[in-house]
């Protein structure tokens, strides 16, 4: 029973922050600077999600994540489709794990 309470609590505190903007965002007319801030969020969030997290893909071996990240960046620079970028980074990690 205890575990169900924990799951329920986790579900609630996770959904509420996700839901709040849906309830309130269109009630307000935001000034220009706020809209610019809002449109900058994806780039800022992606940056923070990537680094330094990518180095922790394997906690004992930061170079593994670095190698995968560099390959992903390289493939992406070549304008390859996102699934190929993902596949390239995955294969890099498998290959490096195999070699180490």
């Amino acid at each position, binding site marked *: 029973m205890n575990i169900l309470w924990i799951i329920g609590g986790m579900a609630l505190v996770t959904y509420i922050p996700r839901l709040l903007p849906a309830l309130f965002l269109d009630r307000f007319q935001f000034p220009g600077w706020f809209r610019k801030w809002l449109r900058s969020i994806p780039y800022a969030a992606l940056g923070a999600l990537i680094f330094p997290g*990518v180095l922790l893909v394997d906690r004992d071996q930061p170079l593994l994540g670095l190698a995968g990240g560099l390959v992903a960046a390289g493939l992406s620079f070549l304008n390859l489709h*996102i699934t190929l970028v*993902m596949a390239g980074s995955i294969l890099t990690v498998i290959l490096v794990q195999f070699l180490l």
Partner: protein
Amino acid sequence: MGSPIALGYFPIAVAFGALAGQAALTWWEAALMSLLVFAGASQFVGVSMLLAGADAIQIIATTFFLNLRHLIMSLAVNDQMRDFPAAWKNFLSFFITDETFALLTLGNQLQREPRGPAYMAGLMLTAYSGWVSGSALGGLGAEFIPSQVTTAMTMGLYGLFIGLLIPSARKSIGYALIAGVSMLLNWGLGHLMDAGWAIVLATVLAAVLGIPLMGEEL
């Protein structure tokens, strides 16, 4: 378009289910957590805390702070859903994760048609089904996936983030600058506070750079 995420989620979800099994959760409790919470990092942390003997309040409070970053991401996603009926917005907001947010906000170059509720629901539910089914399978222990595979698939999700960011960064030095500053801020702040807070603060602060850098309506 949700299938790259589902593919990346699946083995990680299996690992989650397996960890949950160690913490004495049944397979259906692991699946239920994935079904109702749908936030990978916090589920791993929650189950690890359970293993370490933490109590319910501690686990729920940690979950809240870890997932607060979705509030910021939800602002950006809901900005795209302004014209959707309210019920759709409330429903779709449940499925905002780091990955679905990244695809929906920066995946524009992959999809030209306007993105209605059905498109967003398709993307999100595909990712969701990978996460929930993987958790159930991991909890059952029906299939053992070696840790090397999980590591490689985790890399795949970072590959997704990088593959979404680079094309935007190439289009505008401003976007690249915002992302780069956010990385440095997150790295620095990570020494001062836990990872969940560092991501929230780095995102909020680095996005301020966009106020002078962003053009009018782009």
